[in-house]
């Protein structure tokens, strides 16, 4: 089974045309010795534009300008939902009460490493973005939420917060900085689950309304941003929206971090510009080490694209939409040709079912039924019309949970059945194939299920 290393690949070559501003942006200046220090950070990026200088009115004006700039940049959230960042900030800023900002690095997606990488190597960039976002929405507190199993990331961020908290940052009304660890289960990073956990409850999603932007943590308007989104904000605040839009696609500007894994020479976190071709990303990763059967885009709530359709695939939501896929949290997971997509899908489906927070009947029962049916298909013991059962179950769970976990799981399963239709048919009729006997390839955490208090370290298999 491939081990997903937590090391960072070297900065990749520029992906765009030769005369365009080159990558890397976020990953610029990454060193081999761990986190970029404050001095290195300021040397590379320059100081953060000081904000709350002259009084409340000027502060509010500046905050509004910040949000407008981010709106002009077209930045979309990098946590998976691609929600316009400025729209979310505006909603928080206009809600009643003093806001709080949560920097979300919970990263429960097994095949994603970008968020912990950011905390580990670029904590100052993330904090800058958090501080800018806090000032834009009028928040007095910034809480960085790190995955409890990403110890290096948590330690790195904690020490940096201590460093900045001791007065080396801008004067005035900077937000209070805090870091906290959150459980690593799949749904813990969902917005309401994060609020639930930080509020003293379990790391399980809550029913909405009220939405976090109006009443979140401690009933205050809460801005929850993925740490990569905040990192982009840190650079937009310095260089402006036009600079940001010089890379990427018109509908999805700028650069993005992706986690490339599977049968490639160098698995790891890469920075691409939106719209870059999948082929160029794989090239940057040293090329594939074996033939590829398909690629999973977005994560375990994302979609498969079969090998025959991978040619010419470009990494932006606009280009992926015709394939029924989206970039999501930047997961690009390749599956080797030797692996069995049916067995792998069945295994992931069972894991997704176990990751249900078990609060909603349709998710709890539906995902279990889906996983069970897939296991039967993989084993060749399925009832006739098993595929129809899966279709029916998938539409039965859609939009009937408090969060989108069942929808994502159903989406993954349906896309696998479409991308690998022949293999699924073959299994239903003839049972397990040679690939089924191989060790599993898709990364899943190995640890006891469902207990939020579990503290065992994350091991990928």
């Amino acid at each position, binding site marked *: 089974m491939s081990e997903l290393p937590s090391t960072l690949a070297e900065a990749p070559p520029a992906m765009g045309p030769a005369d365009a501003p080159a990558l890397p942006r976020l990953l610029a200046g990454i060193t081999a010795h761990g986190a970029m220090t404050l001095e290195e950070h300021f040397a590379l990026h320059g100081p953060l534009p000081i904000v709350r200088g002259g009084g409340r009115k000027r502060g509010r004006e500046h905050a509004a300008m910040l949000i407008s700039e981010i709106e002009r940049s077209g930045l979309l959230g990098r946590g998976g939902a691609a929600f316009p960042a400025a729209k979310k900030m505006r909603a928080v800023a206009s809600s009643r009460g003093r806001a709080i900002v949560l920097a979300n690095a919970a990263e429960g997606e097994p095949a994603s490493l970008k968020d912990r990488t950011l905390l580990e190597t670029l904590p100052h960039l993330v904090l800058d973005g958090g501080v800018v976002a806090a000032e834009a929405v009028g928040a007095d507190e910034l809480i960085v939420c790190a995955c409890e199993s990403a110890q290096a990331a948590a330690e790195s961020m904690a020490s940096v917060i201590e460093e900045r908290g001791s007065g080396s940052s801008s004067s005035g009304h900077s937000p209070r900085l805090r870091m906290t660890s959150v459980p690593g289960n799949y749904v813990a990073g969902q917005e309401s689950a994060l609020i639930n956990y930080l509020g003293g409850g379990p790391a399980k*999603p*809550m*029913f*909405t*309304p*009220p939405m976090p932007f109006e009443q979140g943590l401690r009933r205050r308007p809460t801005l929850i941003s993925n740490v990569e989104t905040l990192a982009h904000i840190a650079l937009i605040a310095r260089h402006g929206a036009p600079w940001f839009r010089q890379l990427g696609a018109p509908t999805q500007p700028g650069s993005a971090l992706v986690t490339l894994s599977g049968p490639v020479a160098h698995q790891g976190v890469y920075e691409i510009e939106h719209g870059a071709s999948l082929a160029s990303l794989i090239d940057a990763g040293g090329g594939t080490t074996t033939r590829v059967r398909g690629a999973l885009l977005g994560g375990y709530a994302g979609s498969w694209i079969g090998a025959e359709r991978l040619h010419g695939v470009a990494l932006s939501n606009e280009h992926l939409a015709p394939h029924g896929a989206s970039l999501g949290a930047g997961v690009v997971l390749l599956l080797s040709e030797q692996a069995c997509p049916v067995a792998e899908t069945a295994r992931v489906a069972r894991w997704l079912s176990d990751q249900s927070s078990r*609060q*909603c*009947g*349709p*998710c709890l*029962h*539906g995902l279990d039924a889906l996983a069970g049916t897939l296991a039967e298909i993989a084993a060749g013991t399925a009832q006739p019309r098993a595929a129809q059962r899966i279709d029916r179950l998938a539409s*039965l769970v859609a939009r*009937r*949970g*408090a969060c989108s976990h069942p929808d994502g799981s159903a989406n993954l399963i349906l896309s696998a059945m479409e991308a690998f239709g022949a293999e699924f048919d073959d299994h239903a009729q003839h049972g397990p194939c040679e690939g089924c006997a191989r060790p599993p390839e898709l990364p899943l955490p190995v640890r006891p299920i469902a207990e939020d208090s579990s503290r065992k370290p994350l091991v990928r298999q």
Partner: protein
Amino acid sequence: MSHRVRVNPIACEAHGMCAELLPERITLDEWGYPVIDQQELHGWEVDHAIRAARACPTFALLVQRERATRAGRGRGPD
């Protein structure tokens, strides 16, 4: 003013009274949980929907007025 029926899936414990009292809009899936027709309620259905929401032992059924507000006899989350 439009009304819609919605269920809080976390509070719902599949008692099934809602489907008995508003069968035009609510059916139960194979595990006993409500499948709701999300479209606007007709005028005459609103009273039945409110009665169904009151009957729910866990206050999981909600009757929502317009789009964003919670009206009717439902209990939202804290």
